[in-house]
């Protein structure tokens, strides 16, 4: 770093001193083994206690568990240095352990649970995994089907999970289950699951496109008995416990993406200085030089975005917007940079002898894992276009915000809000199909100056309306203008004059 960069850096002297430790640890203990782990399709778990002894697995955690309880910038330093090992798989396994699977235990576990497991997690004696995704449910957490049925002071867990990072090595799972299969979001609970529980099995280790130094597995649960005291938070709070950690998880993704891009770019520059074509190093050709300028600029933009998101996150403010943008931009930049680097290496870029090939396949996961680019764009479009705000649960409280009206409450209120004098000669049957949890189909009939509302599909509708729960509630409670939701394609209506007449005849929801 030059002087100006040092002055503008978010890292102080202590962070930098920690960086030296991380850099040496990675270069002495991890980099020499990474090729072997890539070939073996998994790391040697003896590295976890080594990281634990160095304090690398307890950066954010309290001293009582052996952690250092330090600000998130120390974690940023660790992520950036770990990326220098030369593969993205093993760093991902480490990040899952420290920043995805164990935070819910530390934040929502009972004191007894934390005292029991956190010291082992921080020491690297127990490896953790986050088990949410299922063959039929990825981004759609509320759609999981693994069940936990109460039996005295135990739950009986049945079902399966897939795409689980650390799946074959994990001693502990932060496991999402349905404790009430009749419910969607509110039926999800989170358990700490010990993998030596009878009935648990590893289905198979999955073959992946990249990230080979990290194991990924399918897990099966056959009548596994889990003590009720292993519950995180309360029954039915699982969805919010999982959501609560998403911001940190995505920030980790963004920072790691930038660090990985920087590493492969540095190696590519080195190659371009030594590789000769037509009698001179390829880095002397303008076409390559301009490519490097473009890569450097985009990496810098991504880094500053990730750092900015970190600043907002560390300040304790709501960082959903900044983190979603950073996740989207940094991860897409990461995959783009790897692709550009392969191009610079040319034929050798396609060969395993050089690092670009591995970087290309490893980075392909970036825009998929931890929330796809599509999900990031969806969140952001709701924020920038619809004015939606994503509120996070308060510290220490995982209770969902239930103060807003439900869809059925809104439909129940319609007849009372109907003003026949404003309805003119409206005579129509309206069919509302509201998708998502708590939605359903409703029929609203305006006939002879009166309104009748029934759940389900009745009569032949003269006007059909399709939308989702969030949009419908937001429109009815005045958070979004109906025309904005309509323009955004989040409500479709096939008879607009009738719908406008209906809207005009209703007084506001109080």
């Amino acid at each position, binding site marked *: 770093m030059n002087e100006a960069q040092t002055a503008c850096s978010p890292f102080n002297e202590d962070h930098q001193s920690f960086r*030296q*430790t991380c850099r040496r640890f990675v270069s*002495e203990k991890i980099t020499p083994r990474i090729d072997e782990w890539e070939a073996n399709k998994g790391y040697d778990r003896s590295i976890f206690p080594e990281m634990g002894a160095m*304090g690398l697995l307890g950066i954010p955690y309290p001293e009582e568990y052996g952690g250092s309880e330090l600000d998130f910038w120390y974690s940023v330093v660790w992520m950036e240095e770990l990326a220098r090992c030369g593969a993205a798989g093993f760093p991902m396994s480490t990040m899952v352990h420290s920043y995805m699977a164990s935070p819910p235990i530390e934040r929502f576990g009972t004191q007894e649970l934390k005292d029991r497991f956190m010291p082992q997690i921080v020491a690297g004696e127990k490896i953790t995994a986050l088990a949410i995704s299922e063959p039929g449910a990825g981004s759609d957490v509320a759609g999981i089907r693994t069940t936990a049925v109460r039996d005295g002071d135990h739950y009986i867990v049945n079902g399966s999970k897939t795409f689980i990072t650390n799946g074959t090595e994990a001693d502990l799972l932060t496991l999402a289950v349905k404790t009430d299969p009749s419910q969607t979001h509110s039926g999800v609970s989170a358990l700490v699951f010990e993998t030596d529980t009878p009935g648990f099995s590893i289905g198979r280790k999955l073959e992946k496109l990249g990230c080979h130094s990290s194991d990924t597995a399918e897990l099966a649960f056959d009548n596994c008995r889990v003590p009720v005291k292993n519950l995180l938070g309360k029954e039915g709070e699982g969805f919010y416990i999982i959501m609560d950690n998403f911001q940190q998880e995505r920030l980790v993704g963004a920072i790691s993406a930038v660090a990985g891009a920087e590493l492969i770019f540095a190696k590519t520059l080195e190659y371009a200085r030594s590789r000769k074509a037509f009698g001179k190093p390829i880095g002397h050709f303008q076409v390559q030089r301009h490519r490097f300028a473009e890569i450097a600029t985009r990496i810098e933009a991504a880094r500053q975005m990730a750092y900015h998101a970190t600043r907002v996150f560390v300040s304790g403010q709501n960082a959903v917007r900044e983190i979603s943008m950073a996740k989207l931009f940094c991860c897409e930049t990461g995959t783009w940079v790897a692709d550009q680097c392969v191009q610079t290496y040319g034929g050798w870029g396609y060969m395993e002898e050089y690092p670009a090939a591995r970087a290309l396949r490893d980075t392909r996961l970036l825009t998929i894992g931890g929330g796809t680019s599509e999900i990031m764009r969806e969140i952001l479009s709701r924020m920038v276009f619809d004015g939606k705000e994503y509120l996070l649960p308060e510290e220490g409280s995982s209770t969902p915000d239930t103060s807003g009206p439900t869809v059925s409450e809104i439909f129940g209120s319609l007849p009372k809000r109907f003003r026949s004098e404003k309805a003119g000669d409206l005579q129509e049957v309206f069919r509302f199909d509201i998708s998502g949890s708590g939605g359903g189909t409703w029929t609203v009939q305006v006939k002879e100056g009166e309104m009748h509302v029934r759940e389900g599909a009745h009569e032949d509708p003269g006007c059909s309306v399709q939308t989702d729960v969030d949009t419908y509630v937001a429109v009815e409670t005045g958070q979004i203008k109906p025309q904005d939701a309509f323009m955004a394609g989040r409500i479709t209506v096939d008879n607009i004059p009738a719908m406008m007449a209906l809207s005009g005849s209703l007084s506001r929801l109080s």
Partner: protein
Amino acid sequence: MKCVVCLKRVPDTGTRIKIDSSGTAIDDTDVEWIVNPYDEFAITEALTHRGSDGEVIILALGPEETTKEIRTALAMGADQGILLQVQRPPTDPLQTAQVLASALKELEFDLLFFGCRGVDDDNCAVGPMVASILDIPLLSDVIQFDVEGSKATVQRETEGGHEIGNMPLPCGITTQKGLNEPKLPSLPGIMKAKKKPLEIRPVELPDSSLEIVEMSFPPDRPPGKIVGEGADAVPELIRVLQEEAKVL
């Protein structure tokens, strides 16, 4: 055991060294500084001999910025640091030895540790000079070190072999690669190091009769030569080694 480790701040071995305009010193702008790598063996070894009621003191001579390297040693586990502060570190090892020795006289240590050499000037001189001024035994280039009661047993590297010797305490060693695996400072160690005592004492350097006249880089190595590929190249390779390089 009361152990003292003498530590030196040196340019990172990965730094590209430049000579300043005087031609007699290195240009220290843009230089990254580190704990002398051989001193890391010394610190690690001292920590293993500290015992439950002992302590490890880090003693360094250098500019104020050397506190950073002392903190690193404290993060590795040492108990306290003393910086003998000067504007610029001396290039004469005798000056360094004299200043260190006068501070060491007050410390009443059992064991004294030095790296076998500084990777900057490569003099290998300060340790033996200090021991000589203090009139205590010292063995250099140590690769194994055991202390029992008031006697130390030392194995040291010599040209083409090993030598084993005994010394009474207090004594000193200079540490060579192979003695141990240097400890890395852990994150909790870095945090604890901030609260450990670190005393800064400004000192005056004694006169020196040594003068650096000139510094220069070794000449560039001549480029390599590819004589061919595979088995076909062997006759030509032998000819070149015999006739041109004259090594066969």
